[in-house]
């Protein structure tokens, strides 16, 4: 689905969401109240200006104190890779955006990620992965790094990696593997109302971070939940 189609399905009565320089922001009427929307469109890399602008929108929503949910729609590239972004402290700008989303969620604004295209690496962590619940649309392609780059770093032949990717969800790019890892909670049906499906996700939000449990259930992260529990148990012991 394109962003326009997504917005039409979320807001059948119209909306005030706009895209400028690949950054998405605005709001629309939703479930008797409103839904804030921020995001990245068009496979745009996320750099310092973009991260700061999106964080500003999130903080505006928190300041408004209306407890409206915030949707983070993502079709981005990775973080913008440049000398200037790193010189100016890209890690702080991306962390600032993630913290704004985490604060919003704590402040009563349910945060929902919706990945409908690509996203990777630091941009994925600062946006979609910083939400309380992350949904995807079929065709979405989240990744940490593409296989040719993985081949370069791991010094394994691309053919070998491609073959391994078929049976090993833990390292391979793609939506199914991120679902298996528990990073993506649910895949939505583009043929049905997104307003209803996103509304149901918000209504069903659970406390805590369920991603490692989901990863164990789905087999993409077989040991993470158990390891985290074991460490916490030891820490609680005398």
């Amino acid at each position, binding site marked *: 689905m394109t962003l326009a189609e997504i917005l039409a399905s979320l807001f059948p009565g119209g909306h005030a969401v706009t895209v400028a320089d690949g950054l998405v922001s605005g709001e629309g009427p939703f479930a008797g109240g409103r839904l804030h929307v921020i995001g990245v469109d068009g496979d745009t890399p996320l750099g*310092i200006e973009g991260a700061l602008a999106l964080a*500003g929108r999130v*903080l505006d929503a*928190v*300041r408004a104190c209306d407890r409206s949910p915030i949707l983070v729609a993502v079709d981005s590239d990775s973080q913008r*890779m*440049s*000398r*200037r*972004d*790193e*010189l*100016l*402290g*890209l*890690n*702080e700008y*991306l*962390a*600032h955006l*993630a*913290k704004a989303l*985490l604060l919003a969620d*704590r*402040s009563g604004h349910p945060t929902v990620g919706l990945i409908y295209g690509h996203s990777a*690496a*630091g941009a*994925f*962590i*600062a946006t979609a*992965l910083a939400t309380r619940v992350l949904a995807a649309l079929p065709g979405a392609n989240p*990744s*940490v*790094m593409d296989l040719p780059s*993985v081949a*370069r770093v*791991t010094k394994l032949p691309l053919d070998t990696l491609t073959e*391994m990717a078929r049976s090993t*969800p*833990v*390292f*391979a790019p793609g939506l199914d593997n991120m679902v*298996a*890892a528990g*990073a993506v909670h649910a895949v939505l049906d583009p043929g049905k109302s997104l307003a209803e499906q996103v509304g149901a996700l918000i209504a069903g939000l659970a406390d805590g*971070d369920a*991603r*490692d449990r989901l*990863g164990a259930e789905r087999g*993409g992260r077989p*040991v*993470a939940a158990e*390891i*985290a529990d*074991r*460490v*916490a148990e*030891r*820490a*609680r012991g005398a």
Partner: protein
Amino acid sequence: MAIDRDALSWYEASARQRVDALLDTGSFAEFLGPEERRMSPHLPLFDLPRAFDDGVVVGRGRLDGRPVLVAAQEGRFMGGAFGEVHGAKLVGLLRAAREIKPAAVLILFDTGGVRLQEANAGETAIAETMRAIAEVRADGVPVIGLIGGRAGAYGGGGLIAGTCSRLAVSEGGRISVSGPEVIETNKGAEEFDSRDRALVWRTMGGKHRRLTGGADAFCADSVSAFREAARALIGRAPAFDLATLEAEHARLRNRLEEFGDCRDATEVWARLGVNDPDAVPAMDARAFDETVAGVGGANHDAR
């Protein structure tokens, strides 16, 4: 044998040596230590050697008699990268901190970011870690990052660092998202020449981060210096709330406005009011601290 904290180089020390020497002598107790052999279930697929602790040491100890939880990454194992077990140990430690309420959680970063052989598990663990840090901080427990290892704090490690309450860095502690090699591979050597080590240090190194407010303390390369910094920083951790994030927003916006057109760190330092920017890389910790004291903006509560 007692460890000489002054003589032990943070950069050269192993994760376990750092933890032992950083905390009160003999106070460290490890959780899920190497004797339990909780290794990566995935590395054998790649015919890669495993570590009994998956490259991270987690446990409890005391700092000045006060209870702390601590995690230390081992940069010499797979670049300290986040794999499934590695990440889960940090996440479990942070989750426990919400209940135990220690005086602080100390994270000794030494990481290149996500371990690509376990990329999806590592990436998700980084997101879980950031959420857990936000929760721990909101509960009033400071999370202090110490960065001075050979792998720095790159990739998702840089984002986690940016989520901490306070950061101490040494000269060797680089903080960045995209590493020099990654930028060069993707954008070319004209954009970033990764073999130019001086360029790497002044763009991503501890001095630049400290001068521009990206870190809150600068340490000489010894465990005692990091211990002193951790003790001082625990006492002045900012809250995790709207006021702090609004202040951070203003701070990052100002940085962009003031330095957005700079090409090199030396231009940033000159504009900050550093008299002789070219002399910064060679300064010892004392001279550098005096330089930091002379510029505005390095000290703040906006993180």
